[in-house]
């Protein structure tokens, strides 16, 4: 069995985890279409060390793992707040003017 070192739960069987994709920067909401297309569809699909989201299903815990996709070796795992340090304030969109 392959073991994933979870930052919260310690070493667990990898079947308890779900893969969540590469860690990417979210484009600015007002960016152009090509930037969104790149973000939504196009993949870096790197053959090498990649920073990825992983999820421990039983404890509903998201974290970040660094993994070499050529050898399937998990090099490092850490909580997401080591990367995402600042709180993101999503400003609520202005309410549309009431129709008359």
């Amino acid at each position, binding site marked *: *069995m392959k073991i994933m070192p979870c930052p919260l739960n310690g070493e667990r069987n990898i079947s308890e985890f779900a893969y969540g994709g590469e860690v990417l920067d979210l484009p600015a909401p007002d960016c152009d279409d090509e930037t969104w297309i790149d973000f939504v569809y196009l*993949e870096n*699909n790197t*053959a090498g060390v990649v920073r990825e989201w992983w999820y421990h299903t039983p404890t509903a815990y998201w974290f970040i793992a660094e993994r070499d996709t050529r050898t399937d070796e998990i090099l490092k795992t850490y909580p997401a707040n080591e990367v995402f340090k600042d709180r993101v304030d999503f400003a609520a969109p202005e309410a549309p003017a009431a129709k008359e």
Partner: protein
Amino acid sequence: MPLALLKYGLSKGHPVPRALPAETDLKDSYDIVIVGGGGHGLATAYYLAADHGITNVAVLEKGYVGGGNTGRNTTIIRSNYLTPEGVKFYDESVTLYKDLANDFDMNLMYSERGHFTLAHTDSAIRTMRWRAEVNKHMGIESELVLRDELQRMVPELNYSEDVRYPIMGALYHAPGAIARHDAVAWGYGAGAAKRGVHIHQNTEVTGFEITKANGSPQRVTGVHTNRGTIKAGKVIQCVAGMSGVVSDMAGFKLPLKTIPLQACVSQPLKPFLDAIVVSGSLHVYVSQSSRGELVMGGSTDPYGVYMTRSTLDFKEGLMMHMMELLPYIGEVKLLRQWAGMTDMTPDFAPIMGETPVDDYYIDAGWGTWGFKATPVCGKRNAEMLATGKVPETIQPFALQRFHDFKLVGEKGAASVGH
């Protein structure tokens, strides 16, 4: 009728014919360079030479011919897809497959078995009916059979109600077939080589010569390899697994994830299972090869790696479901296991046609559904390279569809979950 066997039987010395000619040096320049010597690349070379008379063609293969996913799939050929685009395309491929053994004068062991996609829930029955109607509308033999009739047609399965997923019916596709996959690559390779195409094995592409305009890539003019640089009129990439790595050398990104797909065969058994049986809910597909081995596969791995390793998780999951379907095979041993690296697209349809680089074409994104499409890909790629126009049947699969938000949504792609 293929006469090779008769000729061989009557020959005096029983000579072993050489499938591919001896290696030659790379020429300085080729009209067309095909990157990847798998089924798709070799078929493209074959139809370029056979249909269009273009023979100044090189096929560059990093390893050996047919050593990638062409020799790693579970050899199922069918056309009962879900979208009209998919059905039309794969039906052309099935039609070409039927004549291939004659074209090559080589036994491909093409064997029509009937393909059954099992339905275990009401919603699956609805989807099967939908697929059957799309198929019939497109002129494909495809129908929904319910449990009692299915039990008469495929009595080998476990029809007990006392299982996790009782069988309720199946989508039946009579032309569903299996074939000897290596022979398809060898047949295309030998046919192309006979007509003058150069097939260079152990030749790895390391980069492309691409002219630039205003800093962005414009036109491909040459190919760098580990054996030197060659000039190329046109280039087509026909690789799998490493598609993103190759396109990266050409300077553009693809909507692909490289994810392994594992498969295995059992020890040989006396023939007992004629049908090809697939179950989406159970994530299995199984058929019995002409050697008697049960060829089994399941869904892709849960995450991507650039490796062809096998895992215990996969076999445990697959065998659990196989035991539900065929409970009497519990004592049977596994003989071989392997994996292939698949290119998964977000909409389970391939990527074919033009790219952002002029004269650089692509045939990628073949995920878990590439073997059955080998002949039609070769034929249409050749037509595209010869005429410079993208044939109508492959236009829906253009890379540009991701930029136009026109995805194809081919959920019938591999019958099992991804």
